[in-house]
């Protein structure tokens, strides 16, 4: 949805462990990761890296 923000929580990401996480979308998106100790307040924020070539399924 346009202008919507989705949070994927740490508990959901736990299944990924130390594997990489790929975000796929149907259009432009701003992706970031919050690894701070106090919740998603932005103390430790990491931007997602855009991929120059598509990988995997759509």
């Amino acid at each position, binding site marked *: 949805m346009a202008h919507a*923000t989705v949070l994927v929580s740490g508990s959901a990401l736990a299944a990924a462990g130390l594997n990489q*996480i790929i975000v796929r979308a149907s259009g432009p998106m*701003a*992706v970031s*990761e*919050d690894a*701070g100790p106090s919740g998603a*307040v932005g103390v430790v924020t*990491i*931007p997602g890296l855009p991929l120059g070539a598509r990988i995997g399924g759509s």
Partner: protein
Amino acid sequence: MSPAHRTSQHRWRVVALVVVVIAGVGVLAATYGAATPQSLATPASLVSSPDAESSAWYCAGQGTSANAASGQILLTNTTGHAVTGNVTTVSDAGAAVRTAVAIPPHSVVSPTLQAPLSGSWVSDIVTLAGGGVAVTQAVQGPSGWSIAPCQSATSAAWYFPGGTTSSGAGLAISLLNPTTTPVVVDLSFVTPSGVVHPLNYQGVVLQPGQLVIKDVESEVQNDSTVSTVVAARTGRFVAAQLQLFPAPAAGLSLVTGFARPESHWVIPQSQETQGGSSEIDVLNPGTTSESVTVQLRLPSGPLAPLSSTVAPDSTWVLVTSGETRIPVGASYSADIKASGGPGVVVGRTVRAAASATAPQSGMAGGIDGLSTMSPTAQWTTAPTRCRPRGSGHSPRAL
């Protein structure tokens, strides 16, 4: 300073909470793929195609065990085949050493890098025999930790919105020339009282392969907001900023530079905390005023926008924690648009209450419009748990 040994003394802290934030960019969706002059540009960090013959990444801004920001790099192979390469680690003392790396398919590697024999700061030049690998860097010290993308391209200029030298804060700019020709750069600092051009920071020569560190706080003292512009007279280079926040709200932030002003930025996730403060820093490095609008959105809907005319060579410090329209504890996003010139550069600084779990302070750049327009509509996020330095080469395991 002691030699630039990269030791395994520090155990990387286990991250307490990791959240991936995905914010839709509705307005851009309407023009996605449209041919605009900016569409010819690429983000400063872009994972190259898996079938590329080679790729390179530049990781500037790491300290060593000799200072407050010991560094490490992470290589994420998004492809189904192994990728090999070399990491050349250079120090600010001119020492360099090369380490071979191999990244198995669909794996994350935190390699044990050989240490230069001297120097207090290091940068890594990663050259790979193939594409599809994302490279990020992490720093850790007594004040906290930070993770930032490395840069996949050089530029003739780099911009850093926000930063501070007040209350004992440390601010340093790392300048790395990974090219084969000398580069001459000028540093300027945008402060609340105007632009500062320290004499010692003009005409800085970067020889091929050279790493130079410039302490900002020694030249721009006790300024609450210091945005930095580094411009080359000739050539291209890479740059990163390291911000050290002192106690009682300590923190450590590594911010890689932005190569250009842009007209659209997004901060996907923000939250105000009780007893804390935060701000959005909007730098206008251009020669014309920019009309800037910040659209804040709660999950329940948009708030009334905030706007300002940002004069050339100035930073609009929007203290979001002072905006009563933003409820404390509520998640919100910020969509920043600029018009009137080539654009602005956006960052965010956060200080949680001193009683919060460390690190309490941090800063990061916004998501620039180019990065929201991934050519594949795919992104990868960095693994946020790192190996201790010197503990081996195996992927995906602490």
